[in-house]
């Protein structure tokens, strides 16, 4: 108990407590003198900041779209991979590769896919796509879209492998019985595969959530730090490290805590729905 307690306090409680304290001050690396306690003033200012609401909406949109896409792709790929096939090992490798490679290399591969270093008809075509997208959705839309696609591309493979492990952990008889009793593959998927896989999907979504929140490196590498569509986490980083506004940065990140907590509670219920009802 004691070592575990020390670990939790040391690596979790201390930084969180520091952050909460920072958010209640005017802590800034550029100000003269020490930080001064300002109460909830930072939060008040945050709620009135349209830039924050824009960032929040972007973040939630980013989460919803990428998570859904990763889940759909992941389930599909996992089901395909679960079928016995001679090419399985090869396909498995192909699916897993975007995730297994170091982020930097994957990012460059992705960057060159969208923005090839050589002038060819393809690179011209991709340039036109960028202009078309930006033209319709506003400047920076293509960059934002590419970050989302990258997240789906890379995270989808992880979700697939994760869900494949889940599928393999479910006794085959449960699927065989469904084959004996159900009339169509779709029926089988809805009544058996999906509910049995739900706990694993909840975990996958949870991982997608946390990695998306912490996904600073990929956004940074893909956009070069130019922020047109702000994401809460990235913007907080910008505030803290680039501008030294530590109090504001702390406020920005802590504002996400209620949302994250809600998400976790929902996911946990989903993950472990079999509450015993005393008979």
């Amino acid at each position, binding site marked *: 108990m004691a070592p575990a307690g020390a670990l939790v306090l040391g690596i979790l409680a201390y930084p969180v407590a520091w952050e909460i304290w920072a958010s209640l001050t005017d802590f800034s690396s550029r100000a003269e003198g020490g930080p001064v306690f300002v109460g909830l003033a930072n939060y008040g200012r945050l709620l009135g900041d349209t830039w924050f609401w824009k960032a929040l909406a972007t973040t939630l949109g980013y989460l919803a779209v990428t998570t859904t896409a990763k889940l759909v792709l992941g389930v599909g790929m996992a089901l395909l991979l679960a079928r016995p096939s001679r090419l399985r090992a090869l396909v498995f490798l192909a699916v897993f590769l975007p995730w297994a490679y170091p982020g930097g290399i994957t990012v460059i591969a992705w960057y060159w896919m969208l923005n090839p270093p050589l002038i060819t008809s393809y690179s011209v075509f991709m340039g036109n796509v960028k202009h078309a997208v930006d033209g319709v959705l506003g400047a920076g839309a293509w960059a934002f879209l590419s970050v989302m696609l990258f997240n789906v591309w890379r995270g989808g493979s992880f979700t697939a492998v994760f869900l494949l492990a889940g599928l393999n952990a479910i*006794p085959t*008889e*449960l699927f*065989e*019985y469904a*084959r*004996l*009793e*159900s*009339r169509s593959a779709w*029926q089988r998927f809805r*009544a*058996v595969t999906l*509910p*049995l896989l*739900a706990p694993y999907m909840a975990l996958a979504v949870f991982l997608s959530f946390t990695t998306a929140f912490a996904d600073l490196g990929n956004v940074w590498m893909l956009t070069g730090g130019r922020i047109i569509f702000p994401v809460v986490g990235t913007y907080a980083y910008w505030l803290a490290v680039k501008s030294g506004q530590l109090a504001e940065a702390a406020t920005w990140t802590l504002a996400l805590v209620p949302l994250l907590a809600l998400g976790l509670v929902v996911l946990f219920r989903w993950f472990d*729905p*079999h509450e*015993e*009802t005393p*008979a």
Partner: protein
Amino acid sequence: MAQVMMKDLNKKYDEVHAVKDVNLHIRDKEFVVLVGPSGCGKSTTLRMVAGLEEITSGEITIGDRIVNDLPPKDRDIAMVFQNYALYPHMTVYDNMAFGLKMRKFPKPEIQKRVQDAAEILGIQELLKRKPRQLSGGQRQRVAVGRAIVRHPQVFLFDEPLSNLDAKLRVQMRVELKRLHDRLETTAVYVTHDQVEAMTLGDRVVVMKDGWIQQVGEPLDLYSRPANKFVAGFIGSPAMNFIDVSLSDAGGLWAEGQGLRVKVAPAHATRLSAYKGQKVTLGLRPEDLRVASGGDPAEYTIDAVVDVVEPLGSEILLDLRAGQTTLVARVEPAVRAKVHETIKFALVPDRARFFDTKTELAI
């Protein structure tokens, strides 16, 4: 209700030929048990009937339809799995209703069938529970109930009792037998347990290495095994085997491994062709009893007691006789001591003989 026919049935995986030329006619309302050691092809055969395994060659007929190309759902069978295959996210009721719901039965009909089956199995109280709240025996009942509600033409059981403890297994065995008497649905049952096979089956199919060894009524298999494998597999403790050669010395004598007994006149004619050759003599443990003064000397064996296993209703004696070992099953009143030499009388008519090369019964 339906018959099941298998014609020249084969199953080959990449390197393994799992089922070899199986021909079997299971009659309407019959309870047939496939039994054999693991890897003998019994489960694969059952799974081909269910449609869970593809048929490499041959033909399976259920009722009057060839089902080779029918998907499992259209074969009108219901299967019970060894680990029950209950869905953890559904209640007992929903588990039992699953097949009917998938087939879009009207709700009142589903309700009635589930209630009826629950009553037969005595699990009405459990319908609202989840499988994880049930004991092994209760789960087993739900799995059977799930098959009953379908009113299928054929029940398929894949080692349904193997996950239960010994006592519960005996109890469920009786219940399954009673259930079959009541429902009279054709049943194919796979087990590796010969006692289960003997007690449940109207007929028993013994398999080994993908081949059917023998098909017969339980007592037939016991008293007239077709070969050495069946003789050794059916009956517990297993039959004793002694390699002997046959010689003519005032009647036919079997001699070998330090033992010498006379061949009963009932067997002598059949065995005369093997005179001077090696055969295998089979003696069941229950056909060896402690000799009394009146037993003719030519049908007795002297043996030293090695181990005494008192089981209460009987005693098993592990014996050394000549250069071989034997097991005898004797009355509980027998007081045998380790290292004691005892004279055993055999029941000459019940001795079995097998061709040592082909292992077929003579």
